[in-house]
């Protein structure tokens, strides 16, 4: 589904990703863990195609297509979804209107029929239940005055509505209390499917108690320094990033 080869990315002239390689197959859930400033959000933005993230070397293939040749909305229509670490408010635009505009724009780009208002309402009610999204949040302006937890829930609601092929969830757990975390995680789990892959970015292990990953990668200083199964996350929790960072620095110096 997703193949990232030797990716080098600069932001404002500063190298952030320094040779990142990652393979993700349909049906898999991979976690990316790493300390603050490691480049996790940078990876998510490069995948989504944000301006200012300059790919200096490497390639990304998504569902057989050259992802880097596509623009932001084309990537979205092709099935790439980014759950933002910091979702943005759009005052005056109702949440429901927004998700309808998004869904219909994607469907149109794929040559599918647009959804009527009635079909959309039905779908929204169904998907809203998944993340226990209060009815009034659908009518309120997108993320405007939402609490941290409401914003994250809303991201998962949008994901459920858009049914992407690949979901990149950037620190969906940050700012959530334990109840909200459980709700968000069960929403994500409900969307796991053999046709869908997920890349779950997190700083903490606790999210992975709820969303159990197939693989865990540790990102330090722009490189994946270790990969393993879910036990790697537990080990990281015990040992902290310091030890891995030290090993990475040594191997980095040696290479």
């Amino acid at each position, binding site marked *: 589904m997703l193949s990232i080869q030797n990716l080098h990315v600069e932001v404002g002239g500063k190298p952030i990703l320094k040779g990142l390689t990652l393979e993700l197959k349909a049906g898999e859930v991979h976690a990316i863990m790493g300390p603050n400033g490691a480049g996790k959000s940078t990876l998510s933005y490069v995948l*989504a195609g944000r301006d200012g993230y300059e790919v200096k070397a490497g390639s990304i293939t998504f569902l057989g297509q050259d992802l880097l040749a596509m623009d932001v*909305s084309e990537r979205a229509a092709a099935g790439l*979804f980014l759950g933002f670490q910091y979702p*943005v408010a759009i005052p005056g*635009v109702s949440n429901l209107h927004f998700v309808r505009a*998004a869904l219909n*724009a*994607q469907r149109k780009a794929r040559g599918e029929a647009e959804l009527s208002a009635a079909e959309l309402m039905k779908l929204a009610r169904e998907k809203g239940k998944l993340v226990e999204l209060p009815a009034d949040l659908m009518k309120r302006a997108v993320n405007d005055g939402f609490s941290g937890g409401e914003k994250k829930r809303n991201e998962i609601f949008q994901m459920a509505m858009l049914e992407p092929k690949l979901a990149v969830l950037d620190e969906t757990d940050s700012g959530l209390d334990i109840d909200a975390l459980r709700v968000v995680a069960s929403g994500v789990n409900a969307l796991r499917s053999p046709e869908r892959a997920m890349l779950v970015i997190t700083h903490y292990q606790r999210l992975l108690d709820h969303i159990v990953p197939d693989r865990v990668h540790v990102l330090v200083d722009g490189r994946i320094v270790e990969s393993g199964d879910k036990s790697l996350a537990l080990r990281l929790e015990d040992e902290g990033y310091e030890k891995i960072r030290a090993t990475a620095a040594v191997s980095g110096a040696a290479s």
Partner: protein
Amino acid sequence: MTTSEIEDVLAKRYEAGFVTDIEQEYAPKGLSEDIVRFISEKKSEPAWMLEWRLKNYRHWLRMKEPRWAAVSYPAIDYQDLHYWAAPKIGSAPKSLDEVDPKLLETYEKLGIPLHEREILAGVQRPEGDPDRPRVAVDAVFDSVSVHTSFKEELGRAGVIFCSFSEAVHEHPELIQKYLGSVVPFSDNFFATLNGAVFSDGSFVYIPKGVRCPMELSTYFRINAAKTGQFERTLIVADEGSYVSYLEGCTAPQRDENQLHAAVVELVALPGAEIKYSTVQNWYPGDEDGRGGIYNFVTKRGVCKERAKISWTQVETGSAVTWKYPSCILEGDDSIGEFYSVALTNHAQQADTGTKMIHLGKRTRSTIVSKGISAGRGQQTYRGGVKIAKGAVGARNHTQCDSLLIGNRCGAHTVPYVEVHEPSAQLEHEATTSRIGEDQLFYCRQRGLSEEDAVGLIVNGFAKQVLQELPMEFAVEAQKLLGVSLEGAVG
């Protein structure tokens, strides 16, 4: 997306920019007493009307063009204009069948329904809702009104809706009583010029206690080149009546600037309510500021006891806009409202706002102004709130929000407040924000195109005003905001 890329996408498309190829009759260029007499004669006006025009003209000769607004444009040569242009239609057409097909085609292209069975283009009448309000239209083409629909049905309710020229003949007592009663003949340079040479416009009278059975609307079209457009609208809502009125305007795309100086007077008698909405889409000029309409407009209403006047405007067109729809809250407990969205893109300039003059006790006014600037567009909100001595318990709430797209445009706020009554309460809120790269990226990541993303954000920003428009026109206005911003983002 960078700012310069954002600006690149805003290459404005102006859909109403076509010219109707129709034989027209002009007054000779220039302005003189003879031209004023010529116009009056063309309309076979009674002597009192000509006298009033001449009074305006003679006063105008002693006036200076105002230059206090924050707009700049080259000097206008008032002798290099035609003050009258009309399609050659012979005697006034009695039914639509007699109207020149080229004119009908023009309105059809613009989506303006002249046939009574039609409604505005692009608006679907929802199924099972046959009672959706219909719209009666007065279509003004250059200097003359070409057709007014639904006249008979309105007549049965006692509502008068006709061209200004017709009203001068048919209802002279009303015109003589109210013409110049809100905007006096000596008010300002452009209004006085209008008083001398105004060509046509609409007249509305709603009798006591009548709720007008449908929306009324006038659609102004400038077609002729090198011609000023000077229309005049007068609406009188008698005691306890209600009317919702909308004006729309477009003009062809031409390289030279064209002058438009209109006057609107509203009279809301005790307990009456007038809702006046404008969707102004005059040709704005091209990306480099060539051509476009100079829009110098005087709009004012007077409210008697318990009366209410609500101005809603969506201003997307014109090269230069100079416009301050105002309310004189003369009667106790009267209400004035002003809801405005103004958009300036490329080289457009707008100096617009309102004036709320509180004279009566417990008078209330609300001002909501939303300015959107893109490209090199410059915009000034100029608003005045005056509370006279004796306006006990008067209240005003003003909210002024500016949205900037890119970093070459500007937004300015100039509030004037004058309070002579200690019990008055005034509130003022102002914000300035910029469409952020982060907002656009968020929308695009969800699948929206750049243009749709900008349209969505702008419409969200303007929502509070758009929701004041009659539903049919809100749809139109939303589309217009999107189209006018094409090329603002890349």
